[in-house]
């Protein structure tokens, strides 16, 4: 920093600095060149692979779910394509603002927002979550025109499940819902994770759940070239999806409708089975629910309505609720007496109107008794005393051992989930059921109650129908099933659900004939005669009344008991009597005496099934259906 330098010196110094700068520039550019060499030559293979990975994505192609149709091909569950508006939260900065902006274009109500929040909690970070489903064409057009304003938001065509018959098959077909954590774990355990990639709904109930593996199909895949935003640019390679199998049911929509309407809003259940195959012809649980409500997430109001209703519409009474069988148990008891040699068909007892055991009086429902009663009369008139004595003579162990093969107290193995086993009482059952020694002890008086289908006895309508089918099918029991066969929609190959006899109970034809003859007379001149007056076919049956409210010795007078405490009404029936094609059990909760509520329902179902006759008009609930012809 000499203040007296000559211009030449200055120029020399500057040129020196220019050379230094030039050298620095050259070095730095060489450094860059070396960096490029390192990236593009030394590590080329690595970066080449990275670029290919970037560009190529394997996208799952979810299969079309199989349809469900009744025995005549009437559709019970199908798919339809609808547009959904989906948000990928990982690509949206301000979710609330985005949703508010979207709400100006398409209708988004509070329900949609709550559902979005719920789905989002349960989804992975990078997954798209629907904010609106089933957009109208106009809404799609409005959104597409403004799509550029909404990165991370897209319209997708999705398949939705639809149940055209709604409530009618809610309990049988079930419904689908979004895959939750528990489903994910199960899918992982089954090694099906890859097959569920791209699928976000799964069967939750009924056939949708139990035949999930058939209905779902095989997920395909597409190798696509994607851009940085994940949008597919073109398809490089395709592995097509295999659509799910279709289910063809044994159920008949029209029969089901007749049966459901016959309940006319009353609580109860009905199961009708073809005794020759075990195929379920109709299965009603009343009240029912509309499975369509669940398809894209049920609203809080709808869920509360269903879940909090005192009528419990979500409960499948046909297979889950167990009721004391009441007198419908008597044909089976009578058969036990004959088969185990404790009675002959002709052998009669004297009925004084009561049976005294251990200081307790077991009353007959007919004051003064039925007089001399043999097996036939005991079933036709539903005499209790005959069965008090019979139960006492057989003993509880023998009764339980005889009844068990009829599926009493056991799962029938029906092909929808949620079946309960009911209760076949026995000393062993009591020991397992109760804690203290006093509770565990079996009392002789309890055996007497079991004899008339009361006490601890409790069976589902499905079990009653299955047991009756077995009885009228000469002891050959078929597994009850709802699916008749399964069809591969591509090859057309059928997988039959073969009627497999699960057991043959050794019963003597003479004994069966005696019991069945009595059951036919029940509807001719016994407790079912009024309901079946004028029937153009022969039909066997038995009424039953299950006590809800313990009377403690007083006589039961219906008018004095609150509706919910009234007896349950049972009716079991089969027809035609000589070669049965249908066997059924009907239960009406709090319906009172079996002949009055349940038997007319059975009549309507049989009239339709055997004669094609429809009831005149659905009877209002207030009318006494027993008065119908």
């Amino acid at each position, binding site marked *: 920093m000499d203040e007296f330098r000559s211009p030449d010196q200055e120029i020399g110094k500057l040129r020196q600095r220019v050379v230094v*700068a030039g050298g620095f520039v050259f070095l730095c550019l060489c450094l860059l*060149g070396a960096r*490029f060499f390192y990236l*593009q*030559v030394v590590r*080329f293979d690595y970066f080449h692979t*990275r670029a290919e990975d970037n*560009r190529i994505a394997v996208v799952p192609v979810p299969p079309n779910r199989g349809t469900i149709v009744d025995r005549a091909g009437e559709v019970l569950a199908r798919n339809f394509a609808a547009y959904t508006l989906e948000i990928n939260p990982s690509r949206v900065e301000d979710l609330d603002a985005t949703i508010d902006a979207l709400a100006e274009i398409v209708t988004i109500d509070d329900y949609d927002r709550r559902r979005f929040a719920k789905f989002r909690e349960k989804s992975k970070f990078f997954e798209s979550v629907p904010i609106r489903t089933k957009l109208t064409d106009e809404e799609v057009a409005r959104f597409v025109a403004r799509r550029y304003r909404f990165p991370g938001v897209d319209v997708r065509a999705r398949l939705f499940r639809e149940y055209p018959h709604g409530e009618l098959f809610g309990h049988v077909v079930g419904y689908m819902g979004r895959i939750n954590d528990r489903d994910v774990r199960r899918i992982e355990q089954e090694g099906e994770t890859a097959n569920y990639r791209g699928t976000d709904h799964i069967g939750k109930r009924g056939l949708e759940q139990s035949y999930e593996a058939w209905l779902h199909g095989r997920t395909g895949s597409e190798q696509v070239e994607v*851009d940085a935003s994940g949008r597919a640019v073109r398809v490089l390679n395709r592995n097509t999806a295999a659509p799910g199998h279709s289910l063809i049911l044994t159920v008949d929509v029209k029969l089901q409708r007749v049966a459901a309407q016959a309940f006319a809003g009353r609580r109860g259940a009905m199961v009708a089975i073809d005794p020759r195959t075990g195929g379920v012809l109709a299965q009603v649980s009343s009240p029912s629910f509309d499975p369509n409500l669940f398809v894209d997430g049920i609203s809080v109001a709808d869920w509360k309505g269903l879940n909090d209703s005192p009528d419990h519409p979500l409960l499948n009474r046909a297979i889950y609720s167990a009721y004391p069988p009441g007198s419908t148990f008597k044909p089976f008891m009578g058969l036990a007496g004959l088969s185990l040699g404790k009675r002959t068909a002709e052998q009669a007892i004297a009925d004084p109107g009561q049976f005294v055991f251990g200081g307790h009086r077991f009353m007959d429902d007919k004051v003064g008794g039925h007089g001399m009663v043999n097996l036939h009369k005991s079933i036709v008139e539903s005499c209790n005393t005959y069965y008090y004595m019979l139960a006492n003579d057989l003993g509880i162990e023998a009764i339980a051992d005889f009844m068990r093969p009829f599926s009493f107290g056991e799962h029938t193995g029906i092909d929808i989930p949620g079946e309960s086993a009911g209760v076949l009482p026995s000393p062993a059952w009591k020991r397992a059921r109760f804690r203290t020694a006093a509770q565990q002890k079996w009392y002789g008086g309890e055996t007497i109650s079991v004899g008339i289908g009361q006490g601890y006895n409790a069976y589902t309508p499905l079990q009653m129908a299955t047991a009756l089918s077995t009885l009228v099918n000469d002891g050959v029991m078929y597994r009850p099933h709802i699916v008749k066969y399964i069809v591969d929609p591509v090859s057309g190959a059928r997988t039959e659900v073969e009627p497999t006899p699960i057991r043959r109970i050794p019963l003597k034809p003479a004994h069966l004939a005696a019991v069945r003859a009595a059951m036919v007379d029940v509807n001719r001149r016994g407790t079912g005669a009024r309901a079946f007056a004028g029937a153009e076919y022969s039909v066997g049956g038995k009424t039953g009344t299950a006590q809800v409210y313990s009377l403690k010795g007083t006589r039961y007078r219906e008018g004095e008991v609150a509706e919910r405490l009234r007896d349950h009404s049972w009716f079991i029936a089969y027809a035609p009597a000589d070669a049965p094609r249908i066997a059924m059990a009907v239960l009406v909760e709090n319906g009172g005496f079996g002949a009055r509520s349940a038997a007319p329902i059975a009549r309507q179902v049989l009239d339709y099934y055997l004669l094609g006759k429809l009831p005149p008009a659905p009877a209002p609930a207030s009318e006494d259906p027993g008065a119908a012809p």
Partner: protein
Amino acid sequence: MELRLHPVALIRALLRPIDPPLFLLLSLLLAAAFVLMQSASPERIHAQLMNTGVALALMWVAARTPAPRLLSLAMPLYLLGVVLLIAVALFGEVSKGAQRWLHVGVTRIQPSEIMKIAMPLMLAWYFQQREGATGLREFLVAAVLLAIPVGLIVTQPDLGTSLLVAAAGFYVIFFAGLSWRLIVPVVMVGVIGIGSIVAFGDTWCQPDVDWQVLREYQKQRVCTLLDPTSDPLGRGFHIIQSTIAIGSGGLVGKGWMNGTQTHLSFIPERHTDFIFAVLAEEFGLIGALVLLVLLLLLLLRGLVIAAHAPTLGTRLLAGAITMIFFTYAFVNMGMVSGILPVVGVPLPFISYGGTALVTLCIGVGILMSIQREYLQSQN
């Protein structure tokens, strides 16, 4: 110049201010820009054409303006720049967390851009005024002249531009002959600073560590450079994707218009700051080296002009402008290839963007003007 509009004479008149080597190199670079733009963002070709036309015209105006007059513009331009920077600080528009833009009537301008030219011009003019008497006092004054606009730009905050403006001023001071005893310690501090960031980056980059001096987003940029994978979908994504693009180009590239990273939008800002990744992906190492050679030749031409410029002011100005070109190029390519932090610096003459192109071409025009001054002094 006679008033005869004979075509040949007109062309000669037009070409008179032009320095052929510089113009040739510039044309090659601009041509490369069009080739790359066609692949990266064809819809911008038209705008690019307009920008180029305006930039070349302004280059021509600068080139035919005598160098002394250019230097005499230094003080007004500098003062204008400082006033505008203060205006930005007071009334500027906030965009992406930074206050950089100023609305002037219909358009908006970025006053920091003016400083890229005004700063070296001002310092060169100042040293020219003090020719033969450059002592410690002059260097201190120069440092103050440098610090005022740089400080204003840093607080916007715009780290990238403030570094470029600071560098522009520093180059003038460097060529003016600042003692090595002062330069070496500054460079040492820089090297040690960067070295220690690399060594201790992991602990410093914890989210709760406050760096005091730098803003959060600036800290983020440095940290992302140290470990791009730590934020693969955010800032790191840019560096990762651009290095993938460069590396997957290999020796000869994937071919023009065939870069998958480019055409599937994996390269961010592919028409502006990251356009080098497009070049490296589609034309490979060979393409990248050709660009480096073109830039090197341009820079060497600039330094030669600086070396034999007739006056101190023009020498300093030419040297500083050349080194600014170098800084743009090095910082940009270093960033895109992952050896420097992500700083918003365009690739000179290639990246899309009118403002930068105009600034750079005016710079070239100034070089040409200085070269013409030299030729006239030789005659």
